[in-house]
């Protein structure tokens, strides 16, 4: 009655892994772009822009990603936008990632000591030049570990996309598990796949930190 857990199942799960990686890339790119905008708003001297960004960060950080995803998918179609699942996910993940990255990057920029701004300004560098050549290069070093940590979380969170019908790694594992009734083997395989994607990123981050810490 149950199928044998076979290589074909693993191959099926690999297609799921493909979707997982795709979703993660969408979330990383979308989240980084939106996160950069939020960061700039947050550190700008315009109080209104900064407040708007802060409010956004509070709201989105205080909402579970799953709920954000439901709003983007079911909520949007309820008010009349027939949203493709992939679009809903791209939007929800980008919004979610932006709120965290915006905060991480803002913190990194603000933790560069004030003397660095003064040193740059005393030399006649403009605000923009001081940011670009003095502050941001130092902020990147500070922001690297938490940013990579968040990216790894984001990759794992793409498993939530299964609820809006994307057949990514977790969903394929569920399907295979139901067909074979070998949940331990199947989910261990899925865990191994997640690990194989996340581990190199963590390694890369370690190396990057070492290289930046001259």
């Amino acid at each position, binding site marked *: 009655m149950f199928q044998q857990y076979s290589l074909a199942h693993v191959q099926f799960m690999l297609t799921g892994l493909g979707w997982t990686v795709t979703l993660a890339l969408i979330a990383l790119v979308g989240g980084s772009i939106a996160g950069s905008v939020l960061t700039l708003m947050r550190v700008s001297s315009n109080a209104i822009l900064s407040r708007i960004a802060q409010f956004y960060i509070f709201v989105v950080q205080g909402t579970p990603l799953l709920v954000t995803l439901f709003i983007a998918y079911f909520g949007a179609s309820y008010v009349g936008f027939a949203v493709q699942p992939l679009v809903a996910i791209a939007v929800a993940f980008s919004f979610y990632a932006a709120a965290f990255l915006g905060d991480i990057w803002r913190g990194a920029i603000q933790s560069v000591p004030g*003397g660095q701004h*003064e*040193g740059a300004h*005393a*030399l*006649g*560098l403009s605000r923009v030049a001081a940011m670009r*050549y*003095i502050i941001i290069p130092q902020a990147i070093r500070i922001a690297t570990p938490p940013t990579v940590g968040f990216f790894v979380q984001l990759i794992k969170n793409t498993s939530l996309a299964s609820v809006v019908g994307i057949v990514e790694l977790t969903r394929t594992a569920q399907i295979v598990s139901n067909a074979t009734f070998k949940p331990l083997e199947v989910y261990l395989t899925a865990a191994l796949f997640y690990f194989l994607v996340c581990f190199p990123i963590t390694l890369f981050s370690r190396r990057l930190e070492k290289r930046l810490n001259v």
Partner: protein
Amino acid sequence: MSSIERTAAGISVVRASQVCKYYGGFQALDHIDLNVEKGETIVVCGPSGSGKSTLIRCLNALERHQSGKLTVCGVEVNDSRQSVDAVRRKTGMVFQNFNLFPHMTVIENCMIAPMKVRGMSRDQARATAERFLARVHIPEQADKYPAQLSGGQQQRVAIARALSMSPELMLFDEPTSALDPEMVREVLDTMVELAKEGSTMICVTHEMNFARQVADRVIFMDRGSIVESGAPEAFFARPETERAREFLAQILN
């Protein structure tokens, strides 16, 4: 810059009249009048909280004065972008904590402003930076990072970095206060050389030997005001006010 003669005196580099600065209700600068002429070396001293640092930080618009008129290197200091940019291009500042850029090598620290503010080419900027690093006697440290240098060396890099913009006025904000005692000498020697070469300098410092050696004038500040101003011999030998006497008694012990 080194060719400027002492006889060039008569050109005003700083002209402050009735300059006031408040932090909330606290008056940090109280109707400051000050003239500094080209080639002069001024030492500003006084107890902590007397407004010395605030004064020189107003000169390059790191702090903004609220009333009075302040002209630095021919630029009237006000809130406009042009004014602030112009005055910072014409002044160099050396800080107590060096404020070197830790992610750049020594020579890159000295090249960034000439390239990004003056629009120099990389090669030009490198040549200029090498010249000034040689002048502060650390040409061999060019490719190290600031963290690899001693405090005294770092401060000399900071001086070279400021000089690389060919400023008309050099501001020193307690340049030796964060240094170990054995490093103070090398930084002061560099400053003495600069003064003797005719640079216009305003130095907030408690190094009274430096003042004796090269200052044209010593300015004593207390509670936001300039209380005394005069030649160093006269100031050290016969301070006119009780406050200056007390200060000197403490600092010379």
